[in-house]
């Protein structure tokens, strides 16, 4: 019962969004004269160029980091490995401010170019994605058999040939998918491009959609850009589906043991030399702790709202998965295969799975349809009806809840399916209902990974500004939005204080996730 309702709601949302886009395009087609295919082509080209260059630069930096850490056994290594995930959850707007404070005109480091435009976008994307790639590379490099490494040494291959013939032979299957994933992330990048680019010369499709609707008031253009954006991410999605490789995220299995307190200290010190100093410098210089009136409400609002969205997302995913757990034996295939040796289930740690199920398909829709595209159609419908006179906070909440679904589905679907395969027969035999088997059987299995994903989605929701940017900042006083608003209201001290608090909060939540749920995996 729950599953059709949830799926229906999601499909209705997608339908309303598509209808909104079509309506907007139809209504304003005659009034608009600003669409230019030449401009669209240039933006599309810039989108692909910046994403390609960002991916390449992240790969090179990731290779450098990985080559220094792989195969080394040290107490700090587990925490360095864990901290490489940190970049995955840092709020983009905070990354931008750190970057400006670090390499800007008055920054700690002098660079020969401006941190704005394409160079700034590449730097910010590198900061976010290179550690992510490095983590995967370290894991893959350490799986290279020792005899092969010894052979390359005996043959006297230089570093370039070693990387070319040994490393790439082992890491390429996983790396190619990761690079494609990073490429898709860069294509969908919003806050970074908006803050460091923004002008016509440095605009991506994602930002152009926002600008078309909010700046140019050109729904036709926004609709066409949305379609172009969907096609671009669809292309990425197609390749990801065609070769479902192994893309590790922070919630995936790690062979690393739980670190000790000493290891924590040492690894954090090491990390400090990489980007801890800029982060710490940023916090110490900018924060105005005493003036709590600046940050108390945005922090409370962000945390409360983030908890609500994450909880809603979790409940929705459980509702989606629930029906499957109560399927009769014949559907699970257990009766048919009873007595036959069960084929061992390989642990699939991929975040991209083949869409054999409706939930799998939903995961892909979540990946392929950018949030800004989804919100564009909804915004138009919302503001053109009587709903427009009330606060759109509920709509923002719903869109962000949908945004969390792919994360939960990726994390929970596979272990849920395995638990179901293992325990459904027993549950059916002793007559456990769906609710009781969820609580007593699946909950203990899924609890650690659900908690960690909960924290991850909480951090991501707290850093999101794309959805409220379209629906109106004034209705949504979260931390990320408050930073953005303070910047646009000439209140830079407030902006930096809020950004510092946001950063501290993110670090605390990340620490909580890594410390409390360090070894969660989809397989446990």
């Amino acid at each position, binding site marked *: 019962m729950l599953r059709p309702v949830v799926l229906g709601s999601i499909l209705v949302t997608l339908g309303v969004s598509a209808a909104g886009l079509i309506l907007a395009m139809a209504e304003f087609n005659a009034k608009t004269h600003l669409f230019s295919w030449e*401009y669209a082509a240039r933006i599309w080209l810039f989108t692909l160029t910046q994403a390609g260059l960002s991916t390449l630069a992240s790969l090179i930096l990731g290779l450098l980091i990985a080559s220094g850490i792989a195969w080394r056994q040290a107490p700090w290594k587990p925490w360095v490995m864990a901290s490489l995930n940190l970049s995955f959850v840092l709020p983009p707007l905070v990354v931008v401010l750190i970057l400006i404070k670090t390499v800007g005109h008055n920054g700690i480091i002098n660079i020969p170019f401006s941190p704005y435009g394409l160079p700034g976008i590449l730097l910010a994307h590198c900061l976010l994605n290179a550690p992510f790639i490095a983590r995967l590379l370290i894991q893959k490099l350490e799986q290279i058999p020792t005899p092969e490494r010894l052979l390359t040494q005996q043959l006297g291959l230089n570093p370039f040939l070693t990387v070319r013939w040994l490393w790439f032979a082992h890491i390429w299957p996983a790396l190619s998918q990761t690079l494609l994933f990073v490429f898709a992330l860069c294509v969908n990048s919003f806050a970074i491009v908006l803050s460091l680019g923004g002008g016509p*010369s440095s605009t991506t499709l994602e930002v152009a959609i926002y600008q078309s609707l909010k700046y140019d008031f050109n729904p036709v253009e926004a609709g066409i850009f949305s379609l172009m954006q969907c096609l671009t991410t669809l292309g990425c999605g197609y390749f990801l589906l065609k070769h479902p490789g192994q893309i590790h995220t922070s919630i995936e299995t790690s062979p690393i043991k739980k670190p000790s307190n000493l290891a924590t200290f040492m690894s954090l010190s090491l990390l400090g030399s990489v980007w801890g100093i800029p982060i710490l410098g940023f916090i110490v210089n900018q924060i105005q702790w005493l003036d709590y009136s600046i940050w108390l409400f945005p922090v409370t609002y962000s945390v409360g709202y983030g908890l609500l969205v994450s909880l809603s997302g979790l409940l929705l995913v459980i509702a989606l998965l629930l029906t499957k757990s109560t399927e009769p034996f014949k559907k699970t295939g257990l009766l048919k295969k009873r007595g036959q040796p069960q084929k061992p289930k390989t642990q699939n740690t991929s975040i991209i799975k083949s869409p054999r199920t409706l939930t799998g398909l939903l995961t892909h829709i979540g990946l392929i349809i950018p949030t800004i595209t989804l919100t564009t159609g909804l915004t138009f419908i919302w*503001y053109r009806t*009587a709903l427009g006179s009330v606060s759109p906070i509920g709509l923002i909440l719903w869109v962000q809840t949908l945004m969390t679904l792919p994360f939960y589905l990726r994390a929970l679907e596979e272990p849920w399916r395995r638990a179901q395969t293992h325990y459904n027969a027993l549950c059916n035999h002793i007559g456990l209902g769906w609710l009781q088997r969820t609580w007593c059987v699946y909950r203990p299995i899924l609890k650690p990974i659900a908690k960690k994903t909960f924290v991850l989605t909480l951090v991501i929701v707290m850093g999101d500004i794309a959805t409220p940017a379209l629906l109106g900042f004034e209705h949504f006083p979260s931390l990320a939005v408050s930073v953005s608003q303070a910047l646009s209201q*000439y209140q830079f001290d407030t902006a930096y204080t809020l950004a510092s608090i946001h950063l501290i909060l993110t670090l605390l939540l990340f620490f909580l996730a890594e410390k409390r749920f360090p070894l969660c995996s989809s397989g446990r």
Partner: protein
Amino acid sequence: MLFSRMTTLLQSITKPALTPKPDPKNPVKTSQQSLTIRVCCLSIFTVGLLGVSFFPNSVWSSEAKPKLYVASYDSFVSQWGPGPKLKALFEQSCQCEVQFTTAIEGVALLNRIKIQQKHFKADVVIGLDTSLSQEAINTGFFQRHNLKLSTVATAQRHTSIAHNDVFIPIDKGYFSFIYDQKRVPNPPKSMAELINGDLSIAYPDPRVSTVGKGLVLWMNQLYPNNTDKVWKQLAKHTVTVPANWSESYALMLEGEVDLALSYHSSPAYHQIVENRSQYQAALFEEGHYQQIETAAMSRHSQQQTLAQDFLAFLLSPTAQKVLALNNWMMPVYPVATQAELDQLPLPKPLNQFTPEILEQQSKHWLLMWRSHSL
């Protein structure tokens, strides 16, 4: 801490209030009933929170005083801007409550009106300038103010404002590039020098900011036949085009760019508030384009009288002084502000485009800017 409290709260909800008595006949059923209660409680909790978030604020607050909704751009209603001070002053006399609605910049405000139309909740809109007035009238959102005050006539005479039966002028200024004398000892003396030079600049996006749009008008007034070439040349040393004036101006203050587009009156802020005289407006020999900010009332307003009173209040000497010393623009009604502002050197004024030309050409000019600023 909050996370653990939330967890505790959730645990307390999901735990049964009373331990159910074991049913020897059907232990599974009893346990399942208690679980059902827990999950129902959890669902009610979540649905309740969702429901609360959907309700507008007005449901929870009492409405003793009539409310006047005023829409403006972000920096106008910010803590340091004129908005809060005007609100406090007006509320003293009106027995009402002024509530602000904001958009990132003036053009964005108009776009919002176009999308929402009659659903846009504003009795008064402040911050559309004269370059947007015809476009704003075409939305059908605004109505005549019907004010018969001498202050309105004086202000209109001072600004030669068109559509004077709908919009009233509230402040004015000349677009100028501001620089730091310590960093730029030899500022450009003409627009041509700026365009062909190599000093780095920043200006707000013309599609969303009235300041940025002012530059488009300025360029088209100065170079009507080769604006495309001018934009291409300017793009070579334009560092970035942020969404709003505030971010663009901050780039100059932080040394990221040499000059930022603002108003000729902006240095007065640094002199009066910060006691710093290093920031100056570059005065160009070709002349400067003028901006006149306006206010108007909505056709759909539920508080017509209050809206009219507010418009009249904006032209009072008190409000004009607040606008001058907080929005850092020149007053439209002759009123003494402060020496630093009153004695600012006035740039050479350029001819203003008529509303008809603006209506016909604005989109084309913006398209040209967008196409040639790549």
